[in-house]
């Protein structure tokens, strides 16, 4: 019997905004805060809180640079984040498949 438990969902990713952030970052190499804000349709404060959770879990890394003397934060998915997102997708697919079998 496999020890893969499809009911276990990663709580760090399992939130609409955090899932969206991860989906954007897994598709691009690097993204700015404002780009993420546009893509996930969130406010500055809301996005900051959710990105912080992903950062604390080690799923996302941040790089702060200056463009035309303005501070810009660029976010990137880490290897740990990539694996976690991959597992999250697998679990979602398992839920769907399992229901089809039943």
């Amino acid at each position, binding site marked *: 019997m496999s020890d893969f438990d499809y*009911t276990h*969902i990663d709580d760090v990713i399992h939130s*609409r905004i955090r*899932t*969206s952030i991860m*989906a*954007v970052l*897994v*598709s*691009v*190499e*690097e*993204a*700015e805060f*404002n*780009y993420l804000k*546009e*893509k*996930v349709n969130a406010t500055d404060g809301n996005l900051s809180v959710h990105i912080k959770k992903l950062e604390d879990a080690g799923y996302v890394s941040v790089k702060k640079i200056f*463009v035309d003397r303005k501070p810009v934060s660029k976010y990137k998915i880490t290897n740990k984040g990539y694996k976690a997102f991959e597992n999250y*997708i697998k679990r*979602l*697919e398992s*839920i*769907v498949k399992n*229901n089809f079998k039943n």
Partner: protein
Amino acid sequence: MSTIEAESELSVIKKIMEDSRRLNIDNGKHYLMWGILVTFALICNYIMLLTKTGGQYIGIMWFVLMISGAIIDSIMKKREVRTLKANTYAGNIVGSLWLASGIAMFIYGFVGLITKSYNPVFICPIISTSLGISYYTSGAIQRLKWLQNVSYGWWAGAIFLFVFPSIHSVLVFALMLVAFQIVPGIILNINSKKFLESEAHTLNV
């Protein structure tokens, strides 16, 4: 989590990933810059060959123009990277492909000719063949079939220039650059502007 929730979550993730991957659509500015610069150099080269004047400066002219092009290109690239809101893997691969292609053409054009490894009349078809490879791959990576098809123009031109080498090869190559480099650059630039406008419109709705 219910099956419906899982399915909905998966479809949202798929849509976001597809939208994000469409980013970094080629703005065609590099095609235009190199197309105009090389066409200008080719026309100067053709006039020099026809009038049999300044032949000794052809190599220097090419070297100065190509180095200038590389400097302008790197400044453009630096600006784009700084102002881009996100970088895609596809964009980086296309960038690396063109950089590698540029280095290869530099070797063919300068090292190949300085060492007299081949007849200078064949520089144009050799470069055309190389450009065909870059267009074909670049079009495939960006999923732009029409850009991929431009490579057939480069390869057809290369065959023509290999079969019928003459003093006019340089002029034919200049015309090929207009048709297969400057025109695609203009199309890419228009499409990129349209895409950015539609993105801005979607975000404002």
